[in-house]
């Protein structure tokens, strides 16, 4: 079968495009990195990822300037034709500013990505490993192969990762949430330290109403392979990593099902 074509978009200030490209290639995409001002190069995309970074230095608000670039119009068209679009970290911030998530009221900005807080006070940039619990897996192509309430470890690296949602979306959160922060046994919490950034509803990722666009703050490309997992987390993945460091072999990581789900959805658009 021909591999679906994935575009990893490079904005000025993106900084996760290469590892995202590598992870996607590993999971069966024909992936390439395309610059923000190469408008014609995304026409043949079967899937699009907006990677992490600090595009336009987070000026105004993170993602705000990138969301006004001409290439975003093309991405919106692609998304409305059913092409899966994933925004990771800064990519999630761009999707929010572009009104692509949550898509309850089409074209409106419904979500703001605000600076991290703990008990209402700023905490700055946070680099950590968190656990996510899967929600509404069948409503989004990205979670379609996970089970409801499945738990996966994943890293977060952001200063502005706090989902703040408008009223129209808050009523829908229970249906549109794709991942929420939890402990390693899947116990959810909206407070620190489990919810390290103060996000509404402990939200780590949200999909659009149509299920083909997802914005997530954690980094699946950094949990794509077993070797990337720390030994300092808890649960089964820690034991797998221990075995790898005892001379085992590298394998898939916790975000395998996310990339495979995206790939299979991309095939449908070929």
């Amino acid at each position, binding site marked *: 079968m021909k591999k679906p074509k994935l575009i990893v978009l*490079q904005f*000025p*200030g*993106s*900084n*996760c495009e*290469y*590892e995202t490209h*590598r*992870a996607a290639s590993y999971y069966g995409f024909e992936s390439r990195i395309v*610059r923000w*001002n190469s408008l014609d190069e995304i026409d043949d995309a079967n899937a699009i990822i907006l990677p*992490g*970074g*600090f595009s*336009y*230095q987070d000026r105004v608000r993170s993602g705000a300037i990138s969301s006004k670039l001409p290439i975003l119009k093309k991405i919106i068209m692609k998304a409305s034709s059913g092409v899966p679009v994933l925004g990771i970290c800064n990519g999630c911030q761009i999707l929010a500013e572009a009104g692509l998530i949550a898509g309850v009221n089409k074209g409106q900005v419904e979500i703001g990505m605000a600076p991290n807080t703990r008990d209402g006070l700023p905490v*700055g*940039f*946070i*680099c*950590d490993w968190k656990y996510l619990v899967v929600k509404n897996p069948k409503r989004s192509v990205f979670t379609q192969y996970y089970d409801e309430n499945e738990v996966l470890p994943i*890293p977060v*690296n952001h*200063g502005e990762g706090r989902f703040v949602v408008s009223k129209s979306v808050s009523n829908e959160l229970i249906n549109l949430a794709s991942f929420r922060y939890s402990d390693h046994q899947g116990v959810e919490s909206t407070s620190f330290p489990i919810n390290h950034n103060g996000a509404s509803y402990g939200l780590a990722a949200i999909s659009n109403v149509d299920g083909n666009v997802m914005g997530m703050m954690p*980094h699946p*490309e*950094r949990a*794509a392979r077993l*070797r*990337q997992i*720390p*030994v*300092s987390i*808890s649960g089964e993945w820690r034991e797998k990593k*221990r075995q*790898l*460091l*005892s*001379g*085992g*072999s*590298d394998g898939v990581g916790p975000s395998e099902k996310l990339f495979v789900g995206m790939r299979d959805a991309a095939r449908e658009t070929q």
Partner: protein
Amino acid sequence: MSLSQSDLAAIRELLQREPTPVEYYIFDAMWSEHCSYKSSKAVLKANLPTQGSEVALGIGEDSGIIRFVRHDGKQYCLAISHESHNHPSQILPIEGAATGVGGVVRDVYCMGADVIGVLNSLHFGISDDPQSVVHTISKNVVLGVSDYANPLGVPVLGGETVYHPSYNDNCLVNVAAIGLIEESKIIHSYVPDNAQTEPYDIILFGKSTDATGFGGASFSSATLDKENDVQNVGAVQVHDPFLKRVLVEAIKTLLRVVDEKKVPIGFKDLGAGGICCATSEIAVGAGMGVEIDLDNVNVALTDLKPEVIACSETQERFCLAVPRWFSGEVLKIFNDEFALPSIYPNAGAAVIGQVIHENRYLVRHRGAVVADLPVSAITTEVTANRVAAPRPISADAVDPAPWSIDQHRSVAERLMGLPNMMSKRFVFRHFDNAVRGDTVVYPGEADSVLVTPIEGCPAAVAVSMDSNLYGKSDPYVSGAYAVAEAVRNVIAVGGRPLCVTDCLNFGNPENPDAFFEFCESVRGIGDASRAFGFIPNEPLPVISGNVSLYNESKTGSAVIPSPVIVVIGRVDDYRKATVMSFPASGLNVIRVGKMYPEFGGTQIQNLVTGLNDVAPQVRFDPESRSNMAIFAAIDQSLVAAAHDISGGGTLGCIFEMCFGLLGNDAFGATLSVRGNAVTELYAENGGYIVAVHPDNLDQFEQLMMSHGVEWTHLGETTDAQSVDLTTDDGQFVINLSSIRDVWNPEL
């Protein structure tokens, strides 16, 4: 301005006239301690081994380069630069620390390498006063490092945070950057030979030149003085990691074209002294001259004085020497493809001059010649003869008196709450440690962080950055121990040490006491580098470094001798790497190495009085044997966990192995030590604690014996949440949950 009257007299003698303002600032930068190493060069040359069979590029250009691994027919190398940004961080902590990162990564990018990680060594003051500026500085330096490294997209691969009152008036911010490059693609910092026969342009690219960082090199070469605050603030540069990230992507494109078309180029970053230093050095390195027209420089403001355009240290700039036929393509990459002028006002690339065959450094501004120097004048070696005044070093290593069990328990319970023993996660959690996706062992999980930067290749870079607090007791030990510790940290994960870099932070070299400390530390680094080589009959080569003097204020005292060492190593296969935390109960806990009653500068000195002031000596022969033995044991998969002994001694080391990074899921230990209990538990002589599975014990012990190494069987790991100790002073139990709270209150 810091040129002395005697410097000015020497310049007049050299030129046979008064220098112009632009020339004045060129000399001000080039003859500063920061650029000229005039106090330190002779000491460094006499002591540090710099040669080695795996050195691809030694000291002399922007980075040193060591061969790393051969994979898929390519020789991969690591380019390393190690710098300080102490004075700027004391004045403007966020900008100072951020531009420290920004400057050191430029040194690596301009070799043609891609930066795969940075490390930082942060030294902060201590004050009980919550209003003290030391707290603001420590907080904002951390913010500055994260403000730069995170947006740039380079992971912070570790480092250290050290607290001592001697840093109250002078924080230290040392940063090292590591880049990956194929040996055949190394780009040099000078004009290539082709410029002898064809026209070469000088291209400046990056941020538009402004007035920031004017006089930065000379400001870093004097003691900080409150009266100069306004001028000093202007001498600090302003960072823009966002723009740098775009530049880095454009540089990658440029270098790809350069490689495809085999274009010979010279590439240099702009640092101290700005355009003048960079463009003169790029030409001088090839024995040629250069002609610059300041009117062609992209500036952020109109009416900047020529000396400001020529010498300001505006960040995020590089210069290139390229054949003229290629200049148009270079401009197109930066100005059109990556659209720099649309991203930052007046940013971009421009041809600002050309290489000339005369021995001249010529600068024009609005049609007039504003500098005209013989190249030899710029490259003149300046030296300053400094005097070292030796001081007595304590050598009276007497055993401490026995302690009561209550005293033992009280000290053990407070040890992990000392500022230098606490978990530093509250600092490094602000640094992205996984961008690029190559991190396989994370900060705090082992003695070195591991990254696998080559797709499909299991070789991992192991890197550690270390310093210590022994310099007040014995500056020689501070240098030797820093190398020894960094080497141990690489070996404890299963790495083979490859090379050393150093950053030497000291007081005013014109003060004979401070200069003695500098000389002694360098002697210690040299001896240790020769002792701990891993290739037979070779030293660990010192391939890059930096000297930061004048770390004292006019009102305060100097920093304690603070040599900071980076050791880079290679783990041949990351799947054999060893981490620090105990993975199970029932494992043998073994100490490799011997402890001595030497307590100068140790952590335990903060908790009890009456201990001697002999710094922990580095005993080169036995430590080298221990290193080889542990390396072999890890290679043969005989070790389940390994951690080096340093600050906090044997007991501190074992507590950390119980905790791991987070202190969750901890294992305890039952231990028995014979001999003087204080020395055995708290001395900080070099050694290792390892956990060995009972099935591997015989083989492990035979290996130690064959290497002629001393080891002590201390006990075993347990499922209990406690460390149970039997000593010559009696028995006591330390509950892990109680010390976990002082070790990491954030948990």
